[in-house]
Each structure stands twice: as structure tokens, then as C-alpha cells.
């Protein structure tokens, strides 16, 4: 439910933002220095870092036959990658 709300806001935002073309300056002008953007997208990244690896772990178990331990380890690794890359991206546009 939480993730659904993040996604809805994000979809609405990008549909709005993309009208009339997109430039780096335009994006950064909106995002730099914004605590609201940082908070929203930071939380969004964390939610993704929880949701995405769980889904992938189930797929690995069901379609690739991985054991629970392998899939959990891979999921944890994925979560870390998503969180780090994502928070770096948020910092990149907000700093």
C-alpha cells in the first residue's frame, strides 16, 4: 500500500514533468535543495529496496530452483545495491 502511493505520486510527477521536453537544468532546478524531494524519493528508494529483492527471491526459488538460503542472500545483496545506488541518485539531484 505504501509503495503504491509512492508509485502513484511518481507517475503523476513524471507525466507532468515530461510535458514540453526535459532538460537537466529543468529537473535540477526543481530538485536541488528540496527537502521534500529528498524525503519523498529517499523513502521511495528504501521501499523499493525492500520490495524488489523479495519479488526476485521468489522468482529465483520458483523458476531457477534456488534454495531459500541462496535466494535470501541474493535478495539481501540486491537490497543493498538498490539502496546505495538509489540514495546516491537522490543525493545527486538534491544536493
Amino acid at each position, binding site marked *: 500500500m505504501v509503495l503504491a502511493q509512492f508509485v502513484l505520486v511518481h507517475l503523476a510527477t513524471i507525466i507532468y514533468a515530461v510535458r514540453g521536453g526535459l532538460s537537466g537544468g529543468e529537473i535540477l532546478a526543481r530538485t536541488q535543495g528540496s527537502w521534500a524531494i529528498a524525503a519523498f524519493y529517499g523513502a521511495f528508494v528504501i521501499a523499493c529496496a525492500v520490495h524488489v529483492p523479495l519479488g526476485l527471491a521468489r522468482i529465483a*526459488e520458483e*523458476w531457477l530452483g534456488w534454495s531459500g538460503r541462496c535466494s535470501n542472500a541474493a535478495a539481501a545483496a540486491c537490497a543493498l545495491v538498490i539502496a546505495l545506488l538509489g540514495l546516491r541518485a537522490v543525493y545527486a539531484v538534491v544536493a
Partner: protein
Amino acid sequence: MNRNLKVKVWRGGADGDFSKYEVPRQASQTVLDVITYIQRRLEPSLSYRFSCRVGVCGSCAMTVNGIARWTCRTHVAKVVEGDTLEVAPLSNLPVIKDLATDMAEFFDKWARAKGSFRGSKTRHDEFARVEPGSLERMAANAGIECIGCGVCYASCDLVSWRPDYLGPAALNRAWTLVNDIRDTGQIERLRAVAGDAGCHACHTQGSCSERCPKAIEPTAGISGLKRLAARRAMRGEL
């Protein structure tokens, strides 16, 4: 209707193959009629199960043209493709021979899901009072007509992909008992169905509800179990 049916029937164990037979078509013929004809007239060594032949026992469940059905209630006219028919044993169960599968694991999982009633009253006590219109009783009633035919189990991909998965029938039975206010084994039952091999393995593909010959919806019961298990787990009761 003079044409013959060209019927492919599975022979042997799981590593067997289809054999072909020609069966005369008749009006209102069911797939069970076809199999019976083959065994009586063409192939005496064919093994298959049936009992009531009128759609109340579930013994005759087989895979007909790729879909699990009760053969006594499947009219050939409804499923025939041109003039061909393909009959195989139920999927996801060990094949004993030809069209007969070993149902032991299906019922073992029923027991593992704590699919049996445990009450606290004896004959010396008062009758239990159950409100027929209550939400719990209506939820239980929606699932109690299951006769253990195995069609849902054979139709479920998660049963194929996760050998431990308890399966829709066992979980449906657990759901009917979870909603039975007379039952005293609720915590053990929820623990049994709340694991990775239990309700949480279900991905709502819905093949069970789609194929159940009694129009039971295990999807609903399993969703209910997920809800219940999640709530109890969050409260630390599991």
C-alpha cells in the same frame, strides 16, 4: 455421427507415453465413457480410477486435453478438438500406472495443514451454538463441499514449482476449520499454514478456483489465511 474419435491415452509411469485408440462416437458421450470403452474392448490392461460415474465422488479426475477435469462430467462434445482427445493422469502427482496417480502426498499435506477437526465437547455437553449467518460460518460453508478430488492440486503451478507447497485443497480445508468456532486447534493450524510452504507460497494464479468442479474458490480461503497469518504474526502470536 459416424466418425470415430481418435483418442491418445497415457500409458506407463511418468516416463511413459501416449498410445492411440479409435473409439466410436456416440451422443452424450463422456470422457469416462470413452476410457471405459477402451479398457473393455481395446486395451484390457489400461488402469484408471472411477467410482460413482455421476459427479459426486471425484475419483475419475484426469487431465483431458491439458486441463484437469472430472471425466464422468466432461462431455466429449464439449472438449473434443476436431475428432481428437488426449487423456492423461493428473499432473503434480506420482503416476502409478497409466491414468492412476498416487494420492498419498495430497492427503499427507491435508494432514500437515492440520485439516482435521478438533473439538472440546463430548456427547455429555450441550450442543455447540453456531450462528449460520455469521461471517465465519458463511466463509466455512463456502469451502466445506470439497471432496478431495485433486483437480485444484493438479492445476496449480506453485505445487509444481515448490514440492513442499501444501496446495489449494489442504489450505481450503484449513480455512474452513479456521472459521469453525468449535475447533480448538487454531494456533497450531495457523502455524502449520503460515510458512513458506503454506499460504504465502500462493501467487493468486487462480487456476484452483478456475478448475474446481464444485465451484469452490481456494483463492479466497488462501487470501483469508494470508490475512490472518499476517495479523497474528504481527501481534507475535505465531
